[in-house]
């Protein structure tokens, strides 16, 4: 893919980061904030969602479009689900632990907290919230990201349900506390978007209190270029993809602008007339068209070749139109830029174009479904075709695999926010704000580990960003040598993991006890993983040490070495100092894991000196 001069294109990007907080309970209920296995659900609730009009007669356009079809949603519930989660009970007060975390993070970005937290309802009728809204509240304003960008707002929110299938959702994720961090549109290149997202992610992880793993952090990216439009891309889960998503969005907006110019040059037009063309396909071999009750067609005058033009890898203007049509429940569309294909013959295409009076320069779109769905879908297609003549529409889009995006809904406006009347405002006093301690940034920790503990830069970074960071810090605080702790975490625990024992299942206490035993000379550091493995099988630490590697004293070692040396006197005499290595190998074979290799080397050296 060609890379662009983004700054010259006037690219602007901002990001919204949603990170799950690692609290015990949910944001507005006392149930555990954990993800469940959806196959283990023990109940189902069925609900319709409906958009209520506001006093001003305003309905949020995004909400309205989501509610276009009356859909019955199914919600999976669990033995950990309560009535708040299925919208049968008013919410519990805002989880103070979650608020504390959000305030802590706000403080890390040097923000100003609001004196009162006012929970709001943000209308979402795509089915992902049982109530039809997501509770959210602004917590702090105006922060700084490492001097490169600013943060507009930090909000506390509840997470939404996870979609299990089309209209089936699981309520386990609903209500897990999230922090939402919104930057200003301060990023000018895709790489800056990546760097800012990475920095924010690092800051969040520095608290040690955010959830980890896929799906626990989601980035939304807002991108626009000059003459383009603001497009919000939802749900980028992998940091590595974020720059690619931005690049492809810029490419898409540029392509749409080029299409617009071409359409104007061709005096293209869309009159919105829709015709029933079912009769054209009565004898068709196309499986899709054969089954359809109704086939409708419309002509896009002057659009030939442009509907099929690629605007993102694998996506065309026709894909954009299909996204809009899908809102009406159809599975897709056919356009003449891609026909004949899918069983539609050249002859059928000719008849179709002739029937509709379409010329060579025109494109024809057809939709096959029920009459009602076809009509609805055609309206959406006509709408999208008209937008093509104006350039880039403002949209909310979802990410597809690889970094392309598809249309989701119009941008949501302020009309979808209204107060959560079931909750009281929560005060944040200056005293409380002052009392909130902020943790050391992981990047600062990395530097400190290298400087104070003599870890090499790579190891220091690995430890600081590892899930075993707290084990490391505790062990070091308890007096164990940092280099040894780091090696235990990255070598011994990895050995266990290779042997099928997940390091998460090993209690920190056990690891620390084993390391202390090594430091005290009761076991050799080479035996750490074997001792731990024995502990996991149920042995006490002493039993494990005795069974795996009874410690070997210096005197016992010397006796053993003398024996080995005595058998090889000639060899040693002939090789001189060079004999150390091979003989060391023989000794280690006998004592590995029972005494420190360094001691072996010392004693062996002394013994060899006596001979050579």
């Amino acid at each position, binding site marked *: 893919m060609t890379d662009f001069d983004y700054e010259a294109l006037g690219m602007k990007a901002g990001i919204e980061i949603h990170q799950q907080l690692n609290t015990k309970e949910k944001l507005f209920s006392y149930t555990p904030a954990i993800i469940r296995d959806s196959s283990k659900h023990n109940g189902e609730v069925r609900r319709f969602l409906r958009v209520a009009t506001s006093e001003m007669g305003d309905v949020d356009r995004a909400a309205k479009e989501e509610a276009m079809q009356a859909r019955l949603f199914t919600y999976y519930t669990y033995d950990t689900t309560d009535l708040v989660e299925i919208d049968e009970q008013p919410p519990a007060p805002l989880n103070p632990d979650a608020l504390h975390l959000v305030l802590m993070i706000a403080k890390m970005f040097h923000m100003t907290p609001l004196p009162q937290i006012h929970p709001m309802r943000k209308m979402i009728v795509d089915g992902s919230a049982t*109530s039809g809204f997501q509770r959210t509240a602004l917590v702090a304003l105006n922060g700084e990201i490492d001097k490169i960008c600013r943060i507009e707002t930090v909000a506390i929110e509840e997470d939404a349900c996870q979609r299990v299938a089309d209209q089936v959702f699981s309520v386990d994720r609903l209500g897990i506390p999230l922090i939402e961090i919104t930057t200003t549109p301060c990023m000018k290149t895709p790489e800056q978007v990546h760097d800012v997202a990475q920095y924010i992610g690092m800051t969040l992880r520095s608290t040690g209190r955010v959830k980890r793993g896929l799906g626990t952090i989601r980035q939304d990216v807002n991108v626009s270029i000059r003459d383009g439009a603001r497009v919000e891309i939802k749900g980028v889960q992998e940091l590595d993809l974020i720059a690619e998503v931005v690049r492809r969005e810029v490419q898409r907006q540029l392509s749409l602008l080029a299409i617009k110019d071409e359409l104007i040059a061709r005096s293209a037009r869309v009159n919105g007339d829709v015709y029933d063309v079912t009769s054209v396909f009565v004898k068709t071999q196309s499986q899709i068209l054969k089954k359809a009750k109704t086939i409708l067609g419309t002509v896009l005058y002057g659009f030939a070749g442009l509907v099929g033009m690629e605007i993102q890898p694998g996506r065309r203007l026709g894909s954009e139109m299909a996204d809009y049509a899908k809102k009406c429940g159809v599975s897709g569309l056919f356009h003449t830029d891609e026909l004949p294909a899918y069983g539609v013959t050249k002859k059928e295409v000719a008849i179709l174009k002739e029937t509709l009076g379409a010329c060579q320069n025109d494109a024809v779109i057809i939709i096959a479904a029920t009459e009602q769905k076809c009509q609805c879908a055609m309206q959406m297609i006509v709408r999208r075709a008209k937008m093509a003549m104006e350039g880039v529409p403002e949209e909310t889009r979802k990410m597809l695999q690889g970094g392309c995006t598809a249309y989701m809904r119009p941008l949501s406006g302020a009309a979808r926010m209204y107060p959560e009347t079931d909750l009281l405002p929560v005060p944040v006093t200056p005293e409380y704000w002052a009392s909130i301690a902020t943790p050391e940034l992981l990047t600062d920790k990395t530097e400190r580990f290298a400087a104070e503990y003599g870890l090499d830069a790579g190891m220091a970074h690995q430890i600081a960003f590892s899930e075993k960071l707290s084990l490391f810090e505790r062990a070091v605080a308890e007096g164990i040598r940092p280099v040894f702790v780091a090696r235990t975490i990255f070598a011994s625990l990895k050995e266990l993991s290779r042997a099928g024992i997940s390091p998460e299942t090993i209690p920190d206490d056990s690891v620390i006890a084993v390391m202390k035993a090594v430091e005290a000379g009761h076991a050799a550091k080479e035996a750490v993983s074997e001792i731990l493995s024995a502990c996991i099988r149920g042995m006490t630490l002493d039993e494990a040490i005795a069974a795996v590697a009874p410690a070997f004293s210096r005197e016992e070692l010397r006796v053993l070495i003398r024996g080995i040396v005595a058998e090889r006197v000639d060899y040693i005499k002939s090789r001189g100092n060079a004999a150390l290595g091979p003989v060391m190998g023989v000794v280690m074979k006998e004592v590995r894991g029972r005494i420190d290799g360094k001691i072996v080397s010392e004693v062996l050296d002394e013994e060899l000196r006596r001979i050579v």
Partner: protein
Amino acid sequence: MTFSNNNPVNVAFAGLELHGTCISDINGNVLVKLSSGYNICVPTSLCTQAPERAVPPAVHEAEPLKQDANLPLLAIISTGGTIASTVDYRTGAVSSKSTVEDIIKSIPELAGIARYRTLQPFNILSENMNPAMWQKLTRAVYDEIVAGVGGVIVTHGTDTMLYSAAAVSFMLETPVPVIFVGAQRSADRPSSDNVMNAICSMKAGVSDLGEVVVCMHATTDDVACSLHRATRVRKNHTSRRDAFQSIGRTPVGTVSYPEGTVTLEDDAVVRGTYGLRLFDRLEMHCGLLQYYPGMNPDVLDAFSGYTGLVIAGTGLGHVNTDSIAKVAALTAAGTFVVMTSQCQSGEVCDRVYETGRDLLAAGVIEGGSMLPEVALVKLMWVLGNTTRREDAVRMMQTNLKGEFDHDLWRGRGE
């Protein structure tokens, strides 16, 4: 400086200049809706008046309402429930709608079910209902039926809906269905039960039913409403959609959703079984007392001078031995005392234990399986219609409107 509602304001906060609209200015704090939609609350001193923005007033075309002349006519009587509501997204306030236009605009599906007449005798929270309002409501229902409607829908707050429904049930003999309907979850939420309950109630209103019922969600799912007999229903949950449950019997009918198919039980009273008659007298000087262990018998003194008193006793219908003398004093002074039970189901029987027999001797009347709150409403109605004790006893012990959970009492009482 103070700010008034709806004024555009600028807020200097966190080194930023924020723009929004003032929602309220109370005690030195201004609640501002930011242009992002979020509300923030900041000290008044941080706010300045912003220049008035020229926003053209939103014009919403009032579409002329078309009612299909071929459909049956229903009356919708609103008492302040939130069945059809709109939300002020600025303040979050929900206002209930009572004109046909407003209701049909909120719930367009209703236009395909019936034609409507609407009236709103009062607009209150249901906890503020009282017996005088039950009378006013019953007369309104009566007038609508006289005017020729084929069914009456009463929208009502859920807290005291069962009292009002029971009251209408006793005061009115009706040839057509009278459906009480409400919502448990606020009307502003896209998940509210108000729309489904409303649609189901209208469907019930044009059905074959001929009695007073409460129409609410059957389960937590949006798949069916139950039609509960007005004298055998209770609000059994503070917040759930399916809070209303028939006690000691099954619902008299169900309405499927979204199909709207009404299915009635064999013992449902059907349309036209009774003629239209109004008996709207109530003796309001009646009370209801929930007995509790260790209750000071002096509590009963509070009811001295009352015409009637329903006691919700323990188990089979008991109060402690110490209270019996006070009960006897009440009845001796002319208060009509009815014993009911705190148990959810079952009948009172004061002949099993000595305390019970003492209560009977003290002049207490057994209330059978009547729910205590229904017994209270009935007692008001009975004492409003007769002053002769033996008539009152007979009426209280006769199953008049299905208030007993089985029919055996009818034969024995008459």
